[in-house]
């Protein structure tokens, strides 16, 4: 069985994590530091959607979120949580680039986002196993923390 925490897989995962972190940081910081907003008039069918996102302030919000998520991945802080949030952004990017406006360059961008995010979700997938239970009873967040702290004390 391939174990994600053994070499060379551990370092392949490290490369993926750092790559995705830098990918998000460069995109987010390009807006946060340089106020850079791409010219959406040349983005085909996606243009009006992205322009409206900017008008209502959602585009800047996503850019600041990209900086936070990229930093979380870079410093190995709550990576499973960051990857789940990133999956939402990835889905939007993939849908826009692969379905709405499938220019060859955008097809690559959308595919790359999916590959990076899904690979990392698999690599850290052990933490999501409990999400895959078919039938569950309510189990509050604080009960989970309490159970985890009891297990670590024994």
């Amino acid at each position, binding site marked *: 069985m391939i174990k994600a925490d053994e070499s060379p897989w551990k370092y392949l995962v490290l490369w993926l994590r750092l*790559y995705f972190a830098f990918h998000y940081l460069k995109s987010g910081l390009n807006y946060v530091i340089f106020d850079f907003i791409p010219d959406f008039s040349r983005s085909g069918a996606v243009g009006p959607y992205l322009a409206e996102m900017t008008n209502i302030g959602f585009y800047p919000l996503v850019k600041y979120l990209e900086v936070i998520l990229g930093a979380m991945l870079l410093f190995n802080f709550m990576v499973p949580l960051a990857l789940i949030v990133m999956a939402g952004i990835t889905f939007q990017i993939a849908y826009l680039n692969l379905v709405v406006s499938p220019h060859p360059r955008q097809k690559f961008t959308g595919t790359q986002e999916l590959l990076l995010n899904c690979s990392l979700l698999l690599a850290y997938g052990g933490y999501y196993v409990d999400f895959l239970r078919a039938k569950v009873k309510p189990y509050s967040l604080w009960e989970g923390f309490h159970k985890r702290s009891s297990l670590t004390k024994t």
Partner: protein
Amino acid sequence: MKQVISGRHYVLIAAVAIVWTLVVVGFSTSMGERPLRMYDWGPPAFAGLITLIVMFVNNRRQK
């Protein structure tokens, strides 16, 4: 548990990083129509470089 990092592992990581960086360079320049920017090739290349450095440091610590 001690994990052995062999030369093959360095080659694998370097190969993956280089190949993917070249793929990114190809698509980001739209096969030579657009200028090449560090914005595009930077993430996979620097991630590869840092990963190799981490592998080297970890290998030294285990010896």
